[in-house]
């Protein structure tokens, strides 16, 4: 009997998301300078940094909401090819709707506040071309259930819901089409600590169950530490340090990272 050893996963898989040498300036302000990021399938990439460090801009680019001055962005998916920044607006919209999910810090950006919660989730499916009411209803309910949203509030408009619930609706909307990539922009900022812990729990469970690749942006090291496998530290539009989460937290190299880790502890 011969014993075969599998090669380590990291060697056999290609990165799902690759952002290379992205730069962006708004007038004289350099929001991003030569930033690169990579995320492997099923991995959680955490981006941490202070306000104005360019982390949110980078996330908006990953959601194709903004185009950089230079740089490229590829997703390793079956029928997605080439630099995604070169896609026309129609292709962009379809790609964002079907392959990428996003949860914003401010629920007003991601949700229609006066429509029902299930309707908000159903909109994603409608954009993707689902035209059966029963299927829409079932899929929307399933997505809300997966994000641990109380089903008796299914048709309540988000404006009547608490902050934590609104984030759950956003999350349900983001995962409704089972995207390959889930982007989280400060998903728990502004929630109180206990609700924050519950939302993080949900995220962690979803990540384990579905192996979704996630990119999470936060200024809160605790959030990053709970979820992320790998961490990128950004400051002033540049990546100052990147590595495995443990490495960054246990042995920070860059002065800013050291400051950040010490401030937390």
């Amino acid at each position, binding site marked *: 009997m011969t014993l075969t050893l599998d090669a380590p996963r990291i060697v056999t898989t290609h990165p799902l998301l690759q952002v290379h040498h992205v730069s962006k300036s708004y007038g004289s302000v350099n929001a991003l300078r030569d930033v690169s990021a990579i995320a492997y399938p099923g991995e959680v990439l955490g981006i941490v940094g202070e306000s104005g460090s360019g982390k949110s801009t980078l996330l908006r680019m990953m959601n194709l909401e903004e185009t950089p001055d230079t740089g490229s962005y590829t997703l390793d998916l079956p029928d997605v090819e080439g630099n995604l920044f070169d896609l026309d*607006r*129609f292709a962009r*919209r379809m790609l964002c709707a079907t392959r990428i999910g996003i949860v914003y810090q401010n629920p007003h950006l991601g949700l*229609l506040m006066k*429509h*029902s919660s*299930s*309707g908000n989730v*159903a*909109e994603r499916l*409608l*954009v993707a071309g689902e*035209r*059966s*009411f*029963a*299927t*829409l*209803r079932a899929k929307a309910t399933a997505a809300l259930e997966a994000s641990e949203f109380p089903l008796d509030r299914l*048709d309540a408009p988000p404006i009547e819901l608490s902050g934590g619930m609104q984030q759950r609706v956003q999350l349900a909307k983001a995962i409704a089409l089972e995207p390959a990539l889930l982007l989280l922009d400060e998903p728990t900022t502004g929630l109180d600590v206990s609700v924050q812990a519950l939302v993080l729990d949900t995220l962690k469970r979803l990540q384990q169950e579905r192996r979704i690749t996630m990119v999470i942006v936060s200024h809160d090291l605790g959030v990053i530490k709970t979820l992320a496998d790998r961490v990128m530290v950004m400051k002033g539009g540049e990546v100052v340090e990147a590595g495995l989460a443990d490495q960054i937290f246990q042995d920070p190299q860059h002065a800013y990272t050291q400051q950040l880790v010490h401030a937390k502890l």
Partner: protein
Amino acid sequence: MTLHALTKPWEPMSYGFLDASAKREIRRKMIKAIAVPGCQMPYASHEVPMARGWGTGGLQVSLTLVNPSMRVKVIDQGADDSVNAASIRRFIARVAGTPTTMDTLDADLIQSRHRIPEEVLREDQVLVLQVPNPEPLRPVQPNMSIARQMHADADYGRMWLQLYEQIVRSGRVMQGASYPSLVHGRHVMTPSPIPRWDVPKLHMAKHLTILSAGREKRIFAVPPFTRVEPLVFSDVPYKVEDHADLTCHRSGTRGFFMNEIPQDDGTSVFEVSDSAWGVKAIRRRDGEEVALGETWYKNGKMPS
């Protein structure tokens, strides 16, 4: 040769009230609208001696299309004899010298508010509909610049979401009039406030329909033999009003769109909404030789 011989004699107004350049502009916009079915074309809505919102859009299209041999019919909510319809009809006849009619079969040009006649329109007839709100996306996207982008992208997810919400809230689609419809598989239009009953009449119709909104300054069109499909979920069928079994208390016709007339004792009777059709049916019953055209609905059902 004198200058007098080269110029036209003085007239108090140009033919058909609108001046030549205004009519040319509307003609061009109509051609554009026909070229891209269901797409709203902006136009310079001109002054007519009528308040905005009373059918100025439809009137401008009618005034542009008329010639002295065109027979004009004007309908207001199905009736030819309401004040608004009578005034518009008289105005067109006065400024364009056109003969008028109330019979759908005789008409060449039909301007209508809120109804499509019950008799099938022919290839040589033009239907002009007055539209108050041409933008189907307005309820879901108040920003008109973004709404135009959504039309360009064929991004109608929110239109569908609106229907989803209605079914969730009320158990059925509540949209009564101006039911959003997909024209030629591309643009969603609001077919003016015609009832749901009338929307299937536009699908693959032989006649040309021009829809014009005077206040909002938009023209759009449904050319002959064009698909007009109301937005419906695959498992929630499109329903027209429940008028198939109602009988008109005056003409005795059955299976057409009815007006409900409440009575003193709390009950109500019904009267056929297309008044010209009702009148013809009564005259036929009284023994007159009246030609009744083929109707869209047969025994209260639209043949598919």
